[in-house]
Every structure is written in C-alpha cells, then in structure tokens.
C-alpha cells in the first residue's frame, strides 16, 4: 500500500515542488549569509547567492580535488556548483543537475558571470540522472534529495553515476516525524520548504 501511495502522489509532489521553486522569491542572500563563509560568497555572483536555498555548507566536508568530475544534484541557482567548480579547477567539471530549466538558466548565467567554463547544465530528474554509470568522482547535493518522493531511487542513481570508490557529500533536513503535527506535515508548503 505504501508503494502505491508513493507512486500515486509522486507526480503531485513534483508539480508542487516545481511550481514552488519556479516562483520562489529572492532571499536577498540571507540564507547564504547564514550558511556560508563570506570568503566563499565573494566568489559567487549575487544571482546565485540570492536564490541559495540549501540547508548547510556541505562543501566544507567535501574533499574536492583538482580535476574532479562532480555532480550537483538539484543545483538550483548554482551556488554550490560554482563553489565546487572553483575548487575542481579548469581540469575539473561540474554537472549541474536540475529538473527546472529556469534554475539551470540561472546557474549557466551565474557561471558565466563568475568566469567559469567548467560547469555543464544537465536538465533531468534525480530519480533518473542522465549521466553514464561511473562517470563522476563526487556527488554533492544540498537540501534537494528531500524534495523527491522517491528518495531510495534518487540515492541509487547517485550511486550508479559514481565511479567505484567515488564520494558522496550531501546535506538535508531530517525530522522525527512524530515531532511534527500532522497539520504541518500535510501543509502543501511543507513539501517544497
């Protein structure tokens, strides 16, 4: 029954999340200021900073080596893709994945403004990542996997595209569901937020 409910509502969740993120207002950088070091933010164009919606500075825990091929799952407006691209250097590459073309356009624009040519926008869903198996050294993600109604599938896809021995560094919110009132859990805004 649980599996049927999951599949039944997954399109609804995708539509809800897509609508929310297409229409999200600028944070004016307050989320980014809360999460990231100012030295890092200085390297990111304002357009990406203003729409940063992650939940942690996970890149401070990621061992990014020059030349790494990196996948950013749910790149949004690109703040983490840009920071990762700086660290991977000109011989590295960041595949910035998002299912919203509007967000990919923002990432592409911000990358150009930052003078980076090692970010490749990839339109697609984290549950079916359009990259070959074993093609990246590192998968990063910041507050995106929780938006998927099929997290196991999304995580399996992350594993698939990583080379054997490749690394994962992701940030997300966790909750003890019993601690949240049902009125909160079932509120439409709670899915995208």
């Amino acid at each position, binding site marked *: 029954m649980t599996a049927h409910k999951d599949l039944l509502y997954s399109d609804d969740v995708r539509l809800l999340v897509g609508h929310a993120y297409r229409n999200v207002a600028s944070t004016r950088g307050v989320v980014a200021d809360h999460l990231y070091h100012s030295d890092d933010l200085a390297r990111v164009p304002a357009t990406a900073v203003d729409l940063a919606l992650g939940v942690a500075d996970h890149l401070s825990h990621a061992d990014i080596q020059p030349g790494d091929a990196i996948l950013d799952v749910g790149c949004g407006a690109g703040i983490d893709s840009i920071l990762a691209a700086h660290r991977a250097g000109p011989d590295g590459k960041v595949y910035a994945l998002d299912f919203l073309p509007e967000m990919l356009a923002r990432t592409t624009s911000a990358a150009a403004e930052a003078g980076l040519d090692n970010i490749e926008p990839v339109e697609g869903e984290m549950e079916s990542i359009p990259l070959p198996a074993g093609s990246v050294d590192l998968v990063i993600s910041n507050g995106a996997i929780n938006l998927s109604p099929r997290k*196991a599938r999304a995580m399996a896809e992350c594993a698939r595209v990583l080379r054997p*021995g490749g690394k994962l*560094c992701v940030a997300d919110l966790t909750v003890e569901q019993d601690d949240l009132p049902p009125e*909160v859990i079932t*509120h439409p805004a709670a899915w995208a*937020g």
Partner: protein
Amino acid sequence: MAGALAERDFVEKLHRAGFQDIEVAHRQPVSIDVLTLYPLFTDELLALMRRLIPEGKQDAVAVAIVVTATRAL
C-alpha cells in the same frame, strides 16, 4: 520538510543504495526562526508551526545534517 526522513532512515537508505563508510559529519538544529529565512516556508505554515509545536521544541523542529559516504567498490 514534509519529505524529510529521520536521520537513521536517511542513512539506511544510503546503505541500501550501495554506499559504505557512511558518516554524519555535521548536525545543526534548525529552529522556526531559521525557517523564516526561507521564502518557501510561507507565513501561514510558519504561523501553524508556532501555534502547534510546543515552545520547548521550536528551537529544533528539524536537524540539518551533512552526510559523507563512499560508493562501494
């Protein structure tokens, strides 16, 4: 937040997906006040949370975690 898992479930799903050396490298409690920074949390939802979640729990309605792992060989 509605789609968020408990930490143990998040880690277990990573394990089942083929990851090993799974480590929760960072944990940061997230308060309702912090959620106000995110435009995706509507005023209506935030008011609902303030009204329904006990005051003593409003400083940590969620925990942001950073997880590192290695894809098995």
